[in-house]
């Protein structure tokens, strides 16, 4: 078992967004979390990554057997959790190279490894850049500064490739992508898939799931997972919308 979420409740500014999430993710699995706007999808990913804006009020989360909620955001990352941001942050003045070198070496330090030499690091960067067809020019710029929407999302997957996480959470990675960019991003994610890692794909629409095929689909609604099924559920949602689920819930 890679991730186990039990009865997770979380607040932002005193407002309860997550109201008892239960979810288990095993190695090798791809989970999709779908749901209407405001259902708490992004909150769930932020809480898992340790965003201090949110307060966990109840419940437990175990990641690789460790109590995730006790770990700092940096330790969660170094343990192998990765969040691909819905809105990647622009950081003028911090170069991509410096950012990734620092991150990579912090991960290595955590594992008791020596930092990469400059040439090994650049080689690694070159390799991983190709995976998402990230332009060389972008890698030499400041983090996300002046990147287009598609470039920012590709940059997220590039970082994921560099850090080789155990569990990646892709938060609305498809939003703002045209069909070509979507294919590139999805290909990148698929190439990174291994028997011992897993992903949670958070999305509004079915279309990303044409490329990244989930094993299990969950519907998140009003802060709870209200339905769980196989990949056919995504197609059903695409066709019928969310209203039938609301009806099933007696609303």
């Amino acid at each position, binding site marked *: 078992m890679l991730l186990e979420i039990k009865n997770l409740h979380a607040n932002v500014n005193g407002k309860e967004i997550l109201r008892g999430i239960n979810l288990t993710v095993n190695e090798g699995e791809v989970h999709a979390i779908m749901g209407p706007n405001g259902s708490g999808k992004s909150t769930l990913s932020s809480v898992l990554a340790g*965003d*201090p804006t949110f307060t966990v009020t109840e419940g437990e989360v175990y990641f690789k057997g460790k109590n995730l909620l006790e770990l700092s955001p*940096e330790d*969660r*990352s170094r343990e192998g959790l990765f969040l691909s941001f819905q809105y*990647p942050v622009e*950081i003028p003045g*911090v170069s991509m190279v410096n950012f990734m070198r620092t991150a990579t070496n912090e991960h290595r330090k955590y594992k008791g490894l020596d930092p990469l030499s400059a040439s090994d690091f650049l080689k690694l960067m070159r390799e991983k850049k190709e995976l998402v067809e990230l332009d060389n020019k972008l890698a030499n710029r400041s*983090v996300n500064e002046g990147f287009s929407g598609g470039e920012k999302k590709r940059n997220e997957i590039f*970082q994921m490739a560099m850090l080789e996480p155990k569990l990646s959470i892709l938060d609305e990675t498809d939003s703002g992508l045209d069909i070509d960019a979507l294919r590139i991003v999805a290909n990148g994610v698929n190439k990174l898939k291994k028997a011992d890692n897993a992903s949670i794909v958070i999305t509004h629409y079915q279309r990303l799931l044409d490329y990244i095929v989930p094993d299990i689909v969950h519907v998140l609604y009003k802060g709870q997972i209200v339905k769980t099924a196989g990949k056919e559920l995504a197609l059903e949602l695409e066709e019928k919308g969310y209203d039938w689920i609301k009806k099933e819930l007696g609303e």
Partner: protein
Amino acid sequence: MSIEQSYIDIFKQYRDVLKRNSGAPMDALRDAAFESFQRRGFPTRRMEAYQYTDMKEAFAVDYGMNLNRIALTEDFRCEVPGINAYLFYVVNDTFFCPPESENCLIELRKKGVSIGSLREYSETDPELVAKYYGKAAVSGTDAIIDFNTAFAQDGFFLHVPENVVIDKPIQLICVMTGKVPMLGTQRNLIVLERSAQAKLLLCAHTRGEWEQLSNRVTEVFVGENAIYDHYKLENTHSKSISVANLNIRQQSGSEIIVNDLTLHNGLTRNRIQIDIDGEHCQTTLSGMAIGDAKQHIDNTTLINHHKPNCKSRELYKYVLNDEATGAFSGKIMVAEGAFKTEAYQTDRNVCMSPNARMYTKPHLEIYADDVKCSHGASTGRIDETALFYLRSRGIPEEEARMLLMFAFVSDVLDNIRIEAVKDKIRLLVEQRFRGELSHCNSCGVCK
């Protein structure tokens, strides 16, 4: 007895000594400057130009003044070594050429460059010095400049003749030292004739455990189509008081960069005035200040656009922690008739702690039509979303903060056109943010 009175008495008592120890052009301005100082007294915070920093207090300590010119040599090692520069010193207020630089003096003088002690040149080439001395930092306009002009005996002199390009940067290490609290009255004069080029790196340091007050006036004349770079790095200890005036006059078609970096200090008041006296000039003025503990950094700037078709760009950034205070007062004046002026001013500041204070006063005064001018100032905290983004990639919080602070000032450091100096200063800034900087060379004051 008032604080002024003790200096007035010293001036009267040592009037002959001051005359003996300087050339005629320096001595010629002394009495008028002294009278003006006597009339004005030290500026206090009641005056708008000094509202953030009290000068009377700064001069209140019972300082020693080396009026009799006891010879000082210096073996201070600046933290910006290995940049392949011509290296000279000003120790307190005395020019000093280290033995290893004597060949540099000869080399430069062969090219027609006059370089060395201002006192010496005011005696051996009084006509050249008189042509410029006191013409940019004019006495009668400011009590601190008056004080400096009344007491100045020495400092650095540079005259670059027409079309001469000095290939390497000149590094001037200004160090305040002494076994008692000392007041150094340093006066520098730099002249670039038509189409000349030079780059100066001025490093200000302090030694010893005492209060040290440096009163520095630097005048710079940049001739037609000349190019001049002026970088200043202050890295002094917490008991240091630095009062520095930099007055620059630019002729037509000239281009300057001024970059004033305060890495570590005690109390600092920098005033920079740039008078653009010709058309088609380019002016870049920038600065950075990093303050913690109880450090105080005041940068007051004035850019005077007297003539049309000139461009100026101004950028200042402060990072303040603990109980540090920063002040920025920047004024851009566009005179009547200075049409097609482009002048942009930006001041951005970060307060890392709730007790740090930043005072900022950007202002524009425009008397001409058809100009493009802007100013902007902001003071805030570090961007929390960026901090979380970095941490979410495994970068520890402290390191992430350091990266963000460094990124914040990086565009100021980009205004350095000597790669070796830029690299070295970037490293020093990083060390400063990490708290690893040996800013006092074992003096122990700032531990």
